[in-house]
C-alpha cells in the first residue's frame, strides 16, 4: 500500500516535469506550427543562469532566469523563426534543430562540456514525512508547480483576449490576420508563455539533480516530443496527459526492470512510442494536426 502511494507520488512528480515540458513544446506547435528542438536548450539556459546567479536570494535568481529565458525565446522567434514563418513545418523544425545545436555549443564554448554542480534550494531535497510516507520536497514542488502552471495557462488561453487570439491563430492564421489580429504579438506571447514553462522546468531540474551540462536539454526535448506525440500536439490537455504517461512509464520501468536492464530504460520508453505509432498510426490527434498544417 505504502509502496503504491510512493510509486504514485514519484510518477506524478516526474510526470509533472515532463508534462510541463510537453506543454511548452505543444503550445508553440499549436500556435506557430513549430516543432521546437531548441526547447530543451531553453531549459538548459535557465539552468546555467541559475548557476551564475546562485549567490542571490533565491526568488531573485528565479526572476533573473525568467527574464533571461523570455528574452532568449523572443530573440529566437525574432531572429530565427519569424523570417521563415511562411515556410513549411519541416523547414521550421530544421531551423530549430540548427538553433538548438548552435545554442548547445555556444554554451560548450563558454562553460566547457563538463558537468557543473550547484546546490539550489537545498531545503527542497529534504524529505517530508506525511502520514508515514516520505516525500521529497522537490516532488511536492513539482506537483504543485505543474498544477498551478497548467491551470494558469489554461485560464489564460480560455479567458483572455490574447488567449482567444492564440486559439484563432492556431486554427487559421490567415483569417486571424484578416480580422486584425497582430499575429506577431500573439506568437510572442506564446513564446513568453513557453519560456515561463521552461524556467519552471529549469528550477525543478536544478533543484532535483543539482548537475548540468550544455546537453541537458536534449533528453528533455526528446521526452517532450514523445509526450506530445502520445498526447496529441493539437491539445494542451493531451500534452499534459502524454507527459504524465511518460512519467508513469519511466517510474514503472524503474521499479520493474532488473538492474542490468535499467540503463536501457529510455530505450524502452521511446521504443514504446514507436510501437504505439505502429499500432495506432491514425489514432493520434497529432497526426491529424500535422496533416492539416501541411
Amino acid at each position, binding site marked *: 500500500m505504502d509502496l503504491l502511494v510512493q510509486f504514485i507520488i514519484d510518477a506524478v512528480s516526474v510526470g509533472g516535469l515532463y508534462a510541463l515540458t510537453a506543454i511548452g513544446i505543444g503550445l508553440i506547435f499549436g500556435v506557430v506550427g513549430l516543432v521546437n528542438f531548441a526547447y530543451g536548450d531553453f531549459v538548459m539556459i535557465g539552468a546555467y543562469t541559475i548557476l551564475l546567479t546562485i549567490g542571490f536570494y533565491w526568488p531573485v535568481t528565479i526572476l533573473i532566469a525568467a527574464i533571461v529565458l523570455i528574452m532568449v525565446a523572443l530573440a529566437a522567434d525574432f531572429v530565427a523563426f519569424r523570417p521563415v514563418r511562411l515556410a513549411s513545418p519541416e523547414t521550421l*523544425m530544421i531551423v530549430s534543430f540548427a538553433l538548438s545545436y548552435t545554442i548547445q555549443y555556444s554554451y*560548450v564554448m563558454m562553460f566547457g562540456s563538463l558537468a557543473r554542480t550547484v546546490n539550489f534550494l537545498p531545503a527542497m531535497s529534504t524529505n517530508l514525512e506525511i502520514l508515514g510516507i516520505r516525500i521529497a520536497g522537490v516532488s511536492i514542488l513539482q506537483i504543485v508547480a505543474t498544477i498551478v502552471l497548467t491551470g494558469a495557462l489554461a485560464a489564460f488561453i480560455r479567458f483572455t483576449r490574447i488567449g482567444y487570439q492564440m486559439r484563432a491563430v492556431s486554427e487559421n492564421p490567415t483569417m486571424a490576420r484578416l480580422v486584425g489580429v497582430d499575429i506577431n504579438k500573439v506568437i510572442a506571447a506564446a513564446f513568453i508563455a513557453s519560456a515561463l514553462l521552461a524556467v519552471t522546468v529549469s528550477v525543478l531540474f536544478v533543484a532535483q539533480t543539482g548537475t548540468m551540462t550544455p546537453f541537458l536539454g536534449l533528453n528533455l526535448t526528446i521526452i517532450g516530443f514523445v509526450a506530445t506525440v502520445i498526447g496529441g500536439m493539437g491539445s494542451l490537455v493531451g500534452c499534459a496527459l502524454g507527459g504524465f504517461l511518460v512519467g508513469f512509464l519511466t517510474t514503472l520501468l524503474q521499479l520493474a526492470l532488473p538492474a542490468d536492464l535499467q540503463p536501457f530504460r*529510455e530505450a524502452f520508453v*521511446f521504443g514504446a*512510442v514507436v510501437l504505439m505509432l505502429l499500432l495506432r498510426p491514425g489514432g493520434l490527434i497529432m497526426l491529424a494536426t500535422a496533416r492539416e498544417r501541411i
Partner: protein
Amino acid sequence: MRNDPTHSWQGIVWTFLVLGIPVAVAALLLASTGPVLARVVTDTLIKLTMVVGLYIFIGNSGIFSFGHAAFIVVGSYASAWMTIPPTFKKVILPGLPAFMQSIHLDPFTGGLVGVLLAALLAFVIGLALMRLAGIAASIASFAFFSVIVVIYNNWTGWTKGTASLVGLPVYAGPKLALAAALIAMLLALLFQYSRYGLLLRATREDAAAARAAGVEVERMRLIAFVVSAAVVAAGGVLQGHFNGALTTTANVHLNLTFLILAMLVVGGMRSLAGAVIGVAILAFVAELLRQLERGWQIGDFTITAPSGLGQVGLGIVMLVVLISRPQGLTKGREIPMPNWLSRRERQGDAELIGSTQNAR
C-alpha cells in the same frame, strides 16, 4: 518540374558526369598532395556518401529524417564485429558470445553484413515510420535514433559502450571513398529516375492526390527509406574502417546527424547537386574552423579558439542559409543541361520557369 534534367536518361548521364567528374578530379588532386589532405579528402568523401544516402530518402519523399545516423551506428558496429581479428576480439570484447568471437570475415563481406543489417532494420522500422505524415515521421525518426543510441551506449559487452571500440582493420582510403561516393551518386540518380523515384516525388508535392491516384505512398517511401539507409550505412562502415575505432560517447552520432543534415539542407535537399555542393562547402568551413580550434600561429603567439567554435560556426552557417534561402543554395535545382543536349526536353516548361513563386 521545371527544367529538371533527371527526367531523361541523357540527363541522368549528364548530371552524373557534371557532378562526378569535378568531385573525382578535386579529390584525386587534393589527396595526392600528402597524407594530411588525403585524410581530409577521405573523410569528406565518406560524408558525401552519407549525405547522398540521406538525400535518397529526404530529397525524394520530402520527409525529414533525424534517424539516419542510427543506420551508421548499426552498420559500422556490425562490420566491426565481423572484421576485427578473433584473437584481438577476445581481449577487447570479452563479453561477446563465443560464436561472435570466432567470426572473421574479409572487409568487403563484413561491410556488406553491416549494410544489410542496417537495411533490414530500416525495413522493419520503416513499416511503422512510413505510415506517418511529415512532422510526426520526423519526430518518430528522432525517437528511433535515440533508442538505438541508448542501446549501443549501454550494451557494453558488445559495443564497449561509451569507451572506444578499437582494432577495426583500417582499409578505407581516398580511392575507396571516392568509389563509394560515386556509386552512391549513381544509385541516387537511378533511383530518382526509376518508377519509384518519380512516383515518390509526385507524393512529395501532394500526398493526398497521389494516394487518390492509386500510388501506394507508404510502400514508395519504404523503398526509398531502405535504399537510403543502406547507402548511409555503407558510409558508416567506411568511416569505421577509416578511423579504426568506434565510439558512442559525447553525442558523436547526434553531431553526425546534424552535420549530414546541415550539408544536405545548405546545398538544397531536393537535388543531388545540392547534396554535393552542400558537402563541399560545409566540409571546407568545418576544416577551417577545426584549424582555428587547433590553434593559429601568428608570430610567437598561438591563438586557440575555444572548443565548440567549430560546431557553433556550422550551426550559424546553417541558420543563415536556411533563413535567407530555405530551399538551399541550389534551390533544389540540378545543374541544367546545355540546350544542344536537351532540345526535346525543354519545350512547354519554359513559361513556368521562375513564375511559380509569384502567388504568395
